[in-house]
């Protein structure tokens, strides 16, 4: 994140702090203490589900297992590595009501030994234009290091790749139009026009819309609804409208690219969006 966007981020955070509904801290008082104490009293009298008791192996079996482990460790690293393998796939799926928050798909263990390989496999669900492979690689960055112990729905990962691939196709379409390569631009436009039929888009957001109701009469685009204006502008061959959308406000937030690592910045990566992204794309084209 650039210094400028970090500064503006702080401004937003400070402004939000000023409208914190509990700005003076959580309520306190003797009555509240008593009510909470009663609640705690009642809760601790609730039966807890019995903890599963691990069956202890008979001593002979334990001895045999220890021997096998010793032999395996002496026998070579491969056998030991196989023993230490932590699977990424869990075989569990989130409840449907959580889709809007976390995305659909199998829950994956980010600390799994093969998490990055699974992520790469998921990324192949969508294609990138030729020469944009690095965009795909950079999306994988956010899973490194795996600093959460909670499982991640595979849809979250697939959705991030789908958004990134969509932006790459639009970026390539801009380049082809600017270069006057009509046939290549037409090919890109076909891919872009089909983006709403991509597997993860249909699974997560079967009815994408540019405007869905939020709280108090507000609206926002559905999960992939922000793609629609880009698809329409590309379909109409309207480069200026695409530029307006990238630099604009309502549909520019999801149109982004993960930049190169910048070790000197606190946030290790630059995320390009809005006008800065447009300037970057223009530089790449020229």
């Amino acid at each position, binding site marked *: *994140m650039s210094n400028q*966007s970090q500064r*503006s*981020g702080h401004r*937003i*955070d400070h402004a*939000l*702090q*000023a*409208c*914190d*509904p*509990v700005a003076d*801290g*959580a*309520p306190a*008082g003797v*009555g*509240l203490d008593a*009510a*909470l104490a009663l*609640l*705690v009293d*009642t*809760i*601790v009298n*609730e039966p*807890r589900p019995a*903890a599963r008791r691990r069956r202890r192996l008979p001593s002979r079996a334990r001895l045999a297992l220890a021997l096998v482990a010793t032999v395996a460790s002496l026998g070579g690293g491969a056998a030991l590595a196989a023993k230490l393998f932590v699977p990424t796939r869990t075989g569990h799926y989130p409840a449907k*009501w*959580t889709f*809007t*928050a*976390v995305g659909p798909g199998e829950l994956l263990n*980010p600390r799994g030994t093969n998490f990055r390989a699974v992520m790469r496999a998921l990324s192949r669900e969508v294609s990138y234009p030729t020469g944009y492979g690095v965009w795909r690689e950079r999306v994988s960055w*956010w*899973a*490194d290091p*795996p*600093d*959460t*112990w*909670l*499982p*991640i729905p595979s849809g*979250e990962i697939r959705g*991030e790749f789908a958004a990134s691939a969509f932006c790459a196709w639009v970026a390539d379409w801009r380049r082809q139009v600017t270069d006057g390569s009509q046939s290549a631009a037409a090919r890109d436009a076909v891919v872009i026009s089909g983006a709403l039929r991509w597997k993860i888009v249909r699974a997560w957001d079967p009815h994408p819309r540019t405007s869905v109701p*939020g*709280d*108090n009469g*507000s*609206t*926002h*685009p559905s999960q992939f609804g922000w793609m629609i204006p880009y698809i329409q502008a590309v379909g109409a061959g309207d480069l200026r409208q695409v530029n307006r959308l990238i630099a604009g*406000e309502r549909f520019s*937030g999801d149109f*982004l690219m993960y930049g190169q690592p910048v070790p000197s910045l606190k946030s*290790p*990566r630059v995320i390009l*969006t809005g006008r800065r992204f447009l300037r970057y794309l223009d530089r790449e084209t020229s």
Partner: protein
Amino acid sequence: MNPSPKSFERLVQETRTDLLAYALRRTANAEDAADVVSETYLIAWRKLDRVPSGSHARLWLFGVAGNVLRRGAERDRRHMALRERLADELRDAIPTPQHIDADSGTATGTLRAGLASLSPRDREVLTLTAWEGLTPKQIAAVTGLPANLVRVRLHRARARLAARLRNAGTSDADRDDAPSARYTTKMSRT
């Protein structure tokens, strides 16, 4: 965490202020906040051996409370009398929406409306940052997303809110017809 009533009491003592504030910021009224707090602690009691120790316990509880909020109507409605008592105490201890509105300036109203216009995902990372004071790494522990993805979301959410505020312009800034803060910032229960 050791699953004993004593360690549960300690957990409640250490986290009650933060959890109460979390619930009040995201619910429409004291009843709903009391519901969220009591159900979150009920789940914590049942899964006490899975609650991480130290400062991570608070993050774990935020994660559970977030799920309780999203689940909405399906909440466990047991111990109604106790919840009502907790709600009564909360109602007495916090300013009413009218008080909040009266205290609000027009800029605050515009900001609340802007925040309300964001998607629940955007609002979650923004409010966890600004109100709960969490870092991306801590938000990762609450939401179960990698910290770097949280950073990306935060970046997007800030950009969107800034854009909404710019769009609101001065004409809208003069109006403060946004409902109370707790209503406006209520998380979506979809």
